[in-house]
């Protein structure tokens, strides 16, 4: 959406609700988890995933080449009640970027992984990838 400026100075109906921001703790956890995924740190990640998503996360890590990625960018997040989907891209100097999507939800005061999907090569491009 384009930036529409200061709406309170515009003629016409004003918004009746305010935008809500994602919890900073969720974004911080996402950054930490993405670092660990890029490093393929299975030991640390094992304690940050619900049991039913463990195999999915394992498969995601398996598809990441060792030492290929050094940084990441969160490119989108979307709210699903109290959980958040986070779409991110991993970057490395000698590797094609790697796109993945996580669902994070809080349990026992910690944000952990409920879903982990490899999106590389599909579902994110505008056109003509397939």
């Amino acid at each position, binding site marked *: *959406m384009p930036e529409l400026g200061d709406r309170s100075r515009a003629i016409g109906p004003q918004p009746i*609700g305010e935008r809500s921001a994602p919890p900073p703790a969720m974004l911080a956890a996402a950054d930490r988890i993405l670092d660990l995924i890029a490093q393929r740190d299975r030991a640390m990640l094992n304690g940050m995933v619900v049991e039913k998503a463990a195999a999915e996360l394992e498969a995601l890590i398996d598809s990441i080449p060792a030492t290929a990625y050094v940084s990441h960018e969160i490119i989108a997040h979307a709210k699903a009640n109290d959980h958040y989907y986070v779409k991110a891209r991993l970057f490395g100097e000698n590797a094609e970027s790697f796109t993945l999507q996580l669902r994070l*939800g809080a349990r026992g005061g910690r944000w952990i992984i409920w879903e982990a999907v490899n999106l590389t090569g599909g579902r*994110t491009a505008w056109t003509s*990838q397939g």
Partner: protein
Amino acid sequence: MQRMIAVDRLARPDEIILVPVERIRESRIDQGLMPNAVMPLEEDFLKGRLHGIATGEMQAMEAAGRTLFDFPDAPWEFQLDMARQVWDESRHAEIFVKLLEYVGSYLGEFPESEVLWSCTQVDDPACRVAGINRGLEGLACDVFEQIIRMGQKMGDPIIERAVDYVLADEITHVRMGSKWMRKLTEGDPERLRRAQEFQDNIDALFNFDGFRTAKEDAPQVPLVLGGTQVDFDSTLTISRETRLLAGFTDEEIDRLMKAAARSSAY
């Protein structure tokens, strides 16, 4: 250009999160919620519902365009109707994106499901219009009628009138679907049966496990909507008069109501 673009190839810009509907359901179950839809009692109901409609309108626009492209040998009048629908849906998408902003949301705040696009995977234009125009746009008639009443209860003419404006088009889309389902299957009862069965599957997918009632039977509960507290439906309602306007028969509506009542008995 490729026909029948697969569900997982639906193109979106980076900032949109697309999630298969089964995964959205799983996420709701994981959080102890009703799997099928954002219910009026939930905190994000209004934003979530308008977001679902905005993305649905976008996919309806794309789906009508794909139907036009995928069936070049369909009657010219059918193609004209599909082209007109692309135009309608594009206006609707714009309206709902503006309504999202109005209620303090934005496109991309919630995940987008692929449920409408999945109807474009069927290789028969009669099934497509049965599923999309009659099944999903029939559902839209119910959903929009409920939002219009909600806008009235909130004393909010912006929501009420914007959605009413869109509903007028949806009614014509359902009628268009009924017309083409009949015409395209003329003299071919087996094809008509398949199209009806396809629509029945869509209807069953959205009977919401008993959380649908006739609007007259919806229990009223206090809800805070757009900063205003109102008594409103706790269920997703079925609107007989809107469906009649759209050309559904009483018999079809009775069947839908019975199916909703049956699943509430489980």
